[in-house]
């Protein structure tokens, strides 16, 4: 039984006829970092949203640790899935400072435990002195690290990252890529990374999946091609 199992998933956005995903399947082992590559519009973000529970699939099943998340009969709301997500534009809450952003997902902890956890996370992303800043007072790279800290703080089972580097310039990216690799290694978290950049994927991922945009007339019923690095 694989850690994350996606089986025969299909999806089209409401009000549109064309399917974004059709009969898509993918399995992830525990601790595996999978890279999703593919041209624009091939449905990478949509796949992440389906796994996260932000959209409900038209067909197919998603399960995590053997527990069904989405299927014909069952749908677990996103807040109950134990999945963390780093958004492309980070989506840090503008009305909260860095510490409160990171503490936002920590529930069922005492005040002290929560404070310690926030401090640990700040140290993990090397922003120990920035807890009181507001998101708009941070550079792009710093914001991105806060987004990681926030997503990792509640210890999710699975981490989804949608083009986390796209807002960074290439020089900054090299540094961050190294840090992220360390971070993923340290936490040992199962993750999916969507990226446009082959180098990112090569550097960070154990396995790379290439998504081709689905064109019904050309490849009806065919599974998406898997390329293993």
């Amino acid at each position, binding site marked *: 039984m694989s850690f994350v199992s996606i089986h025969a998933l299909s999806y089209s956005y409401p009000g549109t006829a064309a399917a974004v995903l059709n009969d898509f399947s993918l399995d992830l082992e525990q601790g595996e970092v999978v890279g999703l590559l593919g041209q624009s519009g091939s449905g990478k973000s949509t796949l992440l949203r389906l796994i996260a529970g*932000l959209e*409900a699939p038209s067909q197919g099943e998603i399960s995590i640790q053997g527990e069904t998340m989405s299927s*014909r009969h069952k749908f677990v*709301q996103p*807040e109950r899935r134990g999945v963390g997500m780093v958004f492309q534009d980070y989506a840090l*809450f503008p*009305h909260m400072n860095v510490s409160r952003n990171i503490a936002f997902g920590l529930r069922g902890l005492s005040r002290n435990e929560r404070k310690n956890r926030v401090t640990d996370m700040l140290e993990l992303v090397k922003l120990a002195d920035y807890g009181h800043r507001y998101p708009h007072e941070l550079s792009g790279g710093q914001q991105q690290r806060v987004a990681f800290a926030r997503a990792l703080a*509640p210890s999710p089972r699975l981490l989804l990252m949608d083009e986390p580097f796209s807002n960074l310039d290439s020089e900054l990216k090299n540094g961050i890529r190294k840090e992220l690799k360390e971070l993923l290694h340290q936490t040992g978290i199962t993750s999916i990374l969507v990226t446009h950049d082959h180098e990112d994927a090569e550097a960070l991922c154990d396995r790379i999946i290439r998504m081709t945009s689905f064109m019904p007339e050309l490849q009806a019923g065919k599974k998406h091609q898997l390329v293993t690095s």
Partner: protein
Amino acid sequence: MKHLLPSRIRHKLNGWIVISGIGALAALLPSLYILTGLLRRPSENWAHIQEYMLFNYAWESLLLTGGTVAATVVAGTSLAWLTTAYDFPLRRFLSFAFVLPLAIPPYIAAYTYGSMLSYTGSVQTFMRNTLGWSVDQRYFNIMSMEGAIWIFSLFLFPYVYLITRTFLEKHSASFIENARLLGGHPVSNFFRIVLPLSQGAIAGGASLVAFEVLNDYGVSKHFGISTFTAAIFKTWFGMYDVDSAIRLSGLLMSFIIGLFIAERWMRRRRRYHLPVNRSTPLRRMRLGRVSGGIAATVGIIITLLSFFIPVAQLAVWAVWTYDDVWNDRFFRMIGNTLGVSAAAAALLMVLAVIAANASRTWRSGITLVSSKLLSMGYSIPGAVLSIGVLAVFISLDKRLAGVYEAMGFGANKLVLSMSLIMLVFAYIIRFLAVGFNAVDAGYDRIGERYSEASRMLGHGVTATFFKVELPLIKGAVLTGGILAFLEIVKELPLTLLLRPFNFDTLATKAYQYASDEQIHQAAIPSLIIILLGVIAVCIYQWMGRRGST
């Protein structure tokens, strides 16, 4: 039951959506009641009404609405074009001043002008005593169809002006600049490019004007014009034939629904993919000395007539009647008005927020339809809505008779339909759209990212609302609340028809004074309403500017 719904919908169902569904049904109930009136068997009066009233009254309404729409479209569109495309002396001041008439409800304008222009009014007295002119009364008789069109146009043209101007400022720069480069004549550019492009915006403004005219009760009553609304009143209070009144309302409502659909349809067809060209607004062309002077003069005359002169006249009357009007009872009445309006606005905002939230989580046909239905509440004339609300509350009272008896109110008592609850309910239906649109715009501005991030961090829909969304949209909620509050304060027809016995608001008091020939006494409540209206206009302007940056 739940399993009958498609899975995509079922998975997103939550308390917010259920509440807003129930709210939408409750809000629809009065309208449905009226529409089903068309299916019931007509009373014996109906033949008489149909023969002697229906056609005439419908014709007068059509004339009034059509005349006003035509005049406001011409005035509103040309002023919008003048202030966006050209520069002339006083342009900045005038482009704001053209919105100010919205602060004056037409019924107040009607009796102010009616009295000013009468034989004993300030204008004729001045001409007779100071200038020694004797004037032909015919030219000063404003209490007519033409006069009513004139009043409505003068005070409603800002709807067309404002919507068209906003549209032109946002979208037109590249098209018009290109046309200019290609050497088109400015006038032909206006007809060949500006008008077709802004058709949707103009239609939007014009339909607001039409709804306002059809909603009106005060102006036509004061001027003695037999509109459709007047027919409803006559059958209801004159002939005590409620069934026929409901029937008439149903007919008017079907007409309005038709209008509503036509406007949406026209806008849909005309939705070009316009480049939003924010960085380069249209460069205004400077008018020459003479044409600039003419533009400024025309503009000044329009603002004087549509705002400053009536306000000045009211101020004079207010000074005359100050001692007479300004007393304890007046204060209590202001307290009444503000209290009920604030309570209704607060409840309305709660519903507006729930509805906006639901329509966002559940992006689908049904929520789109229900938000369209919400905005339709705004287009149902007050008289029609109040008949529907009254009918629903009376039947509710009948159903609750047993409960009242058990509670010791006595049998056969009308409790709900004699209370403020009914009025508040009607206010909410009528103005929900005002609150909803403000909240919806607020949600649009923040997008869905923050809410999704919060869900991913383990917070449910409700916690997400209170911790993330509300802090981010509280400005929009506040603005919506204030705007709804100000609309309610100046509302006339609903309040007049549904208020409990002896309950007065600023608007009903002003109206009452005016219809008792105590027009000078109406000045103080009117001025307070206008002041609140100016505040609302300023908020709208401020919102518009923030929305476009």
